[in-house]
């Protein structure tokens, strides 16, 4: 399939279509769940004419969850896109590099040490996840760093994979110390449960994600040049070291916010940038927003499916994503060979 070329006009059109698609899925998502609400009822609620019960369902349960899904998608999509471009490797993502697992481990330590039941501190979780993610990133960097040599992307990814199995082992070890409640929480978290669907968490996550996103979109021109390789980027006048560092930190921070409040969405960060690249091409001015939108659509879609089709008990959203993404991932691998 030799697709038509990626023009700016095509880019804008696709972004618009993606935004519309996301809104449609969001509307469907508000309507669906254990308590069905018709679109008209939802509309009335949004106009302030709903019953108390309807208000409760829309504003306290469904809307925050949808916003969380969108933000988590934005974070994972942007983070994966940055990592793939900086490392020039399509397998890079917060999941494969072990950044998510690093964040997860720190979240778990917090759960074990401080919070027994109520996750009281809204800011502590993303911050801890960020520290965990940065620790993981620094470890990967230190372990694959050779003085005076260019860092090989493959080396970084392999180190990430190795480290993330280490984190998993540590996580399992810690899990044994948990009581039943904490255990349930951890299991659901690691499967990607979108648990932080509460306004008090969103009040932290929204500015966190949107400010970082503004920064990386502003840097799309720099990402374009870094995507050509560090030497070419230097030749074009990019201060490679500081830009690389700044964008890496932003990528870790974006994924940390998502991981802390959404859970471990392993595949989204890898697959969304792929889909986006096929749709709008490699120019980051389009690729970055498209990657965010693709990731949000995946998360929202999976969440809506989870809540619509009741498969016994509540299944975490991440499981649905993994089930949906695995064939695509295998297809990519087959194609790469």
């Amino acid at each position, binding site marked *: 399939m030799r697709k038509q*070329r990626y023009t700016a006009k095509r880019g804008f059109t696709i972004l618009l279509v993606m935004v519309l698609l996301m809104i449609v899925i969001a509307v469907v998502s508000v309507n669906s769940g254990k308590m069905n609400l018709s679109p008209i009822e939802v509309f009335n609620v949004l106009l302030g004419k709903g019953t108390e019960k309807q208000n409760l369902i829309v504003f306290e349960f469904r809307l925050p969850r949808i916003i969380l899904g969108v933000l988590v998608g934005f974070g994972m999509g942007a983070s994966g896109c940055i990592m793939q471009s900086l490392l020039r490797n399509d397998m890079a993502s917060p999941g494969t590099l072990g950044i998510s697992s690093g964040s997860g481990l720190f979240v778990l330590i917090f759960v074990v040490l401080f919070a027994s039941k109520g996750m009281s501190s809204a800011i502590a979780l993303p911050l801890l996840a960020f520290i965990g993610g940065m620790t993981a990133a620094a470890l990967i960097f230190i372990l694959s760093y050779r003085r005076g*040599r260019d860092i090989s992307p493959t080396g970084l990814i392999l180190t990430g994979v190795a480290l993330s199995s280490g984190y998993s082992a540590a996580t399992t070890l810690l899990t044994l110390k948990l009581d039943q409640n904490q255990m349930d929480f951890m299991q659901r978290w690691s499967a990607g449960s979108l648990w932080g669907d509460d306004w008090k968490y969103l009040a932290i996550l929204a500015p966190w994600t949107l400010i970082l996103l503004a920064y990386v979109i502003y840097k799309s021109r720099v990402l374009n040049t870094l995507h050509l390789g560090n030497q070419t980027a*230097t030749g*074009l*006048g*990019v*201060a490679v070291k500081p830009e690389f560092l700044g964008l890496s930190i932003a990528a870790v921070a974006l994924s940390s916010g998502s991981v802390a409040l959404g859970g471990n969405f392993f595949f989204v960060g890898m697959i969304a940038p792929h889909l986006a*690249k096929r749709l709008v091409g490699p*120019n980051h001015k389009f690729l970055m927003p498209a990657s965010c939108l693709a990731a949000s659509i995946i998360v929202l879609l999976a969440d809506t499916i989870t809540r619509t089709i009741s498969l016994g008990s509540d299944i975490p959203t991440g499981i649905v994503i993994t089930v949906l993404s695995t064939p695509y991932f295998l297809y990519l691998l087959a194609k790469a060979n």
Partner: protein
Amino acid sequence: MNSISTEKLDIAYDDALIVKALDMNIPHGKISSIIGPNGCGKSTVLKAVGRILKPKTGLVYLSGEDIRDLSTKEIAKKMAILPQTPTAPSGLTVSELVAYGRFPHQKGFGKLTPEDKKIVNWALSVTKLTEFENREVDTLSGGQRQRVWIAMALAQQTDLILLDEPTTYLDLAHQLEILELLYDLNRKQNVTIVMVLHDLNLAARFSDYMIAIRDGKIVTHGSPEKVMTSESLKDTFSIDAEIVLEPRTGRPICLTYNLVNSSSKESPPQKEDIAV
């Protein structure tokens, strides 16, 4: 006047000193080639001059200014550099990649101005790529792709372009095509060209100035006539070379050669030796 000069340049990987106390001058407005055996440090020198590699000690001057006093963006307005075999992300079109050359001149979000577009179109036409402008770079042939990278460097609008083995992996005709393009750029647009070349005869044919390096030190430098002698090639490559003047261009070429320590001067055996 010198476009580039280096002063006591020491360049090291880890603790291994690759280039030692190098004093090199690149004349302005000329084509200069750096030649030398594998691992002699010729690419390393080019990278240090192009501030891709930080020298251990020593100074690099760009038109008389210490490059450490210039921001990387300022340098990019004066000097373009093409690494060896750069790669473009799949799906990127020729005109997009060439437009990336405008990077050092842009601000903020970097929307292309009409001026930028004019320069990109000029770069495309000079490199004869106008008809390919909407093609994806990864669908082009090796020679065309190399021209795209040169066009990107041209869009940077610099007086100086550094190229690390621009003819690698190209066949005879495409090698010549790239070098003739660079020659035209030098003669018509007055761009100073500095390149690392493997092929001695092509270097002698197209260069005004040659620098022969061995073990991180300059063996000899000057016009092709001065550098392409049996004496200096022996010192640089340890070869015993037969230098003649090429009938078409009048430039010195290496007609044939042996290793200096080779036992037989005339290996492989000649036809007459075998046929009885």
